[in-house]
């Protein structure tokens, strides 16, 4: 199945402080959005799995672009997340097609990432905002890395489109200080701790 991409949209945040001490090495958060045609829009299609594999290439391209946006070194990436917004003529389940290819792509590009990729999805119109959840790539319980990045594309998704999102970050929240499991303490075996 051909994936018809209408648009890519990237966002790169560089955060130096949030009222506290200024950091010499800013936290970077990057989001990449692709808005693509939804071949199942406007009808109920029982078998939507053929599209899932077709999204693998797009996922890898998006994950690679994110690493480039964050400086080019996959080892700098500490947090990730993914999400989808389904245009009005589609159904929520179409957004679920992104779980496997989106997660697979980031793991492949990042190497040994162990943790589940947190996700969010919804049905919405152009300009709909989605808060993409973010957690540590190797241990979901690392408290300093619980975060979310809001994404939005003013002119998408159209009703017959899917907006697919991947997010990567380079570190903890800028002034993280609420305790819990630290990144330096993780075992990295089960993806949780």
């Amino acid at each position, binding site marked *: 199945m051909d994936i018809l991409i*209408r648009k890519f949209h990237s966002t790169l945040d560089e955060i130096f402080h949030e009222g506290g001490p200024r950091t010499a090495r800013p936290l970077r958060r990057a989001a990449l959005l692709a808005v693509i045609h939804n071949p199942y829009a406007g009808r109920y299609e029982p078998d939507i799995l053929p599209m899932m594999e077709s999204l693998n290439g797009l996922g890898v391209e998006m994950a690679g672009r994110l690493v480039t946006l964050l400086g080019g070194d996959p080892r700098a990436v500490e947090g990730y997340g993914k999400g989808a917004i389904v245009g009005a003529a589609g159904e929520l389940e179409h957004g679920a097609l992104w779980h496997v290819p989106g997660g697979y792509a980031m793991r492949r590009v990042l190497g040994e990432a162990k943790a589940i990729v947190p996700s969010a999805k919804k049905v919405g119109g152009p300009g709909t905002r989605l808060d993409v959840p973010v957690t540590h790539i190797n241990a979901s319980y690392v408290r300093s890395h619980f975060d979310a990045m809001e994404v939005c594309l003013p002119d998408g998704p159209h009703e017959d489109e899917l907006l697919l999102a991947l997010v990567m970050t380079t570190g903890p929240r800028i002034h993280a200080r609420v305790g819990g499991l630290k990144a330096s303490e993780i075992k990295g075996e089960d993806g949780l701790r």
Partner: protein
Amino acid sequence: MRADIRKIVVTVEETRREMGKEVSPATRKAVAAAVIKNPFAGLYAENLEDLMAIGEELGGLLGEKAVAALGVTPHDIESYGKAAIVGEKGEWEHAAAILHPRLGKPLRAAVEKGAALVPSAKKIGGLGAAIDVPLGHKDAAFVRSHFDAVEIRIPDAPRGDEIVVAIAVTDSGRPLARVGGLQKNEIKGEDGLR
């Protein structure tokens, strides 16, 4: 550095299809925005020199970041624009002080030339306020294919004592421009208009 920058956000939009038609080469817009502390939040200052100096600084910094985000040479930039959102403890004139007196010169250096007026927009707004940064051809304001705008919004800014300052650049006009007017290959680029 005069500006206390809390964060910098850079966005790139790349349009490959529009109305079912392929756009080749893809049109691309970049916006670089800084969230800075407003030194005059909550007070009336007659002399806005500090903001003018910040504008000069950000014209270069954000101009260079936006051009770098497109990965092209300054020469290849085709259109530009600027905008500011002042948090609620600031004043309309604070946006003007950043945008108008001194921001243009370093921006023009970042995009090579820039004979045309840099189109601008400003507003007072709260966290997550969106602003449409107007775009016009950098050397000839009448190039109709390049009349455009690009939206930027930062979910956690501006706080009341902050200002969002944005610079937008493109390496292209609208995706399927076809409403006539002055074409980019017809411009003289001397008076900034045609």
